[in-house]
């Protein structure tokens, strides 16, 4: 078996497991875990937006919570004030976040490294305080709540988020679509440009890439991912609050992305999954669960610097007894795998 076929099989198992969540979990544990699974899916998109920037164009953003918050409010406000439905609210949340990213990004992507990280924090703080003070509109840190609209209303058939399974599958559908789109983009000629900029921005410019524009596009797309995450979370909680725009939310997304493995399509999903499940399990018995998260993160960074996804890839390479660089050789053209292309590990994880 080649590494690619093992990965493919693992992916099928994983997809089946995700589809089975609402049926299987009630047999094994409290249905509460269905909501945790939904929450993991949602938050993983925020981590994915960090991953798109850090793992594919090499920019570390500590401000993705801003776009999460804009997505959240975009969905909530359009439902409350314009009577938007689920899909309309989701679309407006995503568009609002992309617009915000288009504005902030025009300044931020002129910088790199710590300057970029700092300016992304600054932007998110400014908007966080603005949202806090615009209490009549945003509800400040109390937030605003709303009744969730139907996902689908067609004649007598009405699908409501109030149904736990409907809510889970709706979230799964949107999240899967986001990852599919993400996967498509990073394998496309545009994705090729992203990775060139990540690897070596000077050489990227010297083969004719407009580095600024490339980073800018990635930043706006990452804003869209964070916006989708925020909009879904608003529908999930029927609630939007300025507290989610605070930078510790951004920081958490960075940790999820790094633990999961940057530069791997599904890495952030596994990072978010592992750490959220840990939080839920440990926080019921020990309030200082963040110590465990911190220790785990340090261990991952020290012993598996490419995260869970990297560890999975190394495991596959060991199993198929080929060193990683050579393992890529016999795979079909679509999957020739550099350590940071998503293909070899897009399917990690059972």
């Amino acid at each position, binding site marked *: 078996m080649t590494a690619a076929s093992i990965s493919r099989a693992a992916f099928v198992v994983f997809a089946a497991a995700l589809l089975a969540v609402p049926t299987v979990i009630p047999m094994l544990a409290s249905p509460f875990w269905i909501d945790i699974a939904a929450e993991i899916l949602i938050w993983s998109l925020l981590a994915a937006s960090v991953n798109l920037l850090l793992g594919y164009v090499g920019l570390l953003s500590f401000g993705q919570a801003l776009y999460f918050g804009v997505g959240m409010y975009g969905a909530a406000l359009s439902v409350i004030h314009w009577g938007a439905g689920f899909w309309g609210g989701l679309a407006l949340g995503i568009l609002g976040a992309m617009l915000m990213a288009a504005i902030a990004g025009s300044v931020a992507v002129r910088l790199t490294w710590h300057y970029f990280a700092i300016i992304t924090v600054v932007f998110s703080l400014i908007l966080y305080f603005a949202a806090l003070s615009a209490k009549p509109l945003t509800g400040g840190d109390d937030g605003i709540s709303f009744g969730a609209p139907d996902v689908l209303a067609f004649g007598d058939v009405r699908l409501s988020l109030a149904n736990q399974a409907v809510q889970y599958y709706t979230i799964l559908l949107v999240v899967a679509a986001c990852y599919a789109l993400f996967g498509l983009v990073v*394998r*496309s*000629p545009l994705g090729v*440009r992203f*990775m060139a900029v990540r690897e*070596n921005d000077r050489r990227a*410019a010297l083969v*004719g890439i407009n580095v600024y524009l490339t980073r800018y596009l990635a930043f706006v797309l990452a804003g869209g991912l964070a916006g989708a995450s925020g909009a879904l979370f608003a529908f999930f909680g029927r609630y939007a609050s300025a507290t989610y725009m605070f930078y510790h939310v951004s920081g958490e997304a960075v940790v999820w992305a790094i633990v999961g493995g940057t530069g791997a399509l599904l890495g952030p999903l596994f990072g978010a999954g592992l750490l959220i499940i840990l939080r839920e399990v440990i926080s019921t018995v020990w309030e200082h669960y963040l110590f465990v998260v911190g220790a785990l993160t340090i261990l991952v960074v020290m012993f598996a610097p490419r995260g869970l996804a990297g560890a999975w890839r190394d495991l596959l390479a060991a199993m198929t007894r080929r060193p990683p660089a050579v393992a890529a050789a016999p795979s079909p053209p679509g999957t*020739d795998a*550099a350590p940071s292309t998503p293909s070899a590990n897009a399917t990690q994880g059972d």
Partner: protein
Amino acid sequence: MRDVSENAIALSVNGLTRRFGGLVAVDNVSFDLPARRLNAIIGPNGAGKTTLFNLITGEIHPNAGRVVVHGQDITGLKPHQIVRNRVSRTLQIKSVFSGLSVGENVRTAVMVHEGLVSPFRSATSYSAVNNRVAALVDQVGLTPHMHTLASALSYGDVALLEIALALANEPQLLLLDEPVCGMGPQETEQTVRKIREIAKTVDVVLIEHDMEVVFAIADEIIVMAQGAILARGTPAEISSSPAVQEAYLGAPEEADL
């Protein structure tokens, strides 16, 4: 392939000046380089050679002067726009996409040259691009390493890969900054052979410290010292020039940018 008349000018630099604070790194430099020749620029450390290349490729903007390549004024354009004007360069410290395979490196350069930006179609599904990638990798002799990570290549092979990247935009002018710097004799020979081959169809300008290499392959040499042109001529003329000998042996080396 190219339609160049016998006395065409590949690169014309006119009054080019760049100051860094009080230091004039490139001081009112003017020259015309004829097409179809292999031109070399030599000079002691700090003579302004690399700054001159940076000015030509738009990485640094000049305080004064113009750069014209094959009749087209490229002064003030950004580096990626200059690449589109069919000017390519390699760097003194070899610069490739080290986390990508050889094939992916070259594919990147080819796709950008072809202006492909689709966000949805698979990057590996363009058969014309794949063919061109295979041809370029073959041209520099790296076909056995097609799927090797650039970071796993030997130093000499990284240099060849960088040349392949530079050739992807079908350059009319290729600037090579110390192409054999840091190489052993075998790698030097391999690279020199490649440069000679390329120079048959592309106008090449190279900066080089290895005098043996320069005198062996250059048709014409420009000697720079302290930001200005000191001498110009055939290898025979340069090796017998007293001014050049003084610049290399007599005057103390000065640190500059």
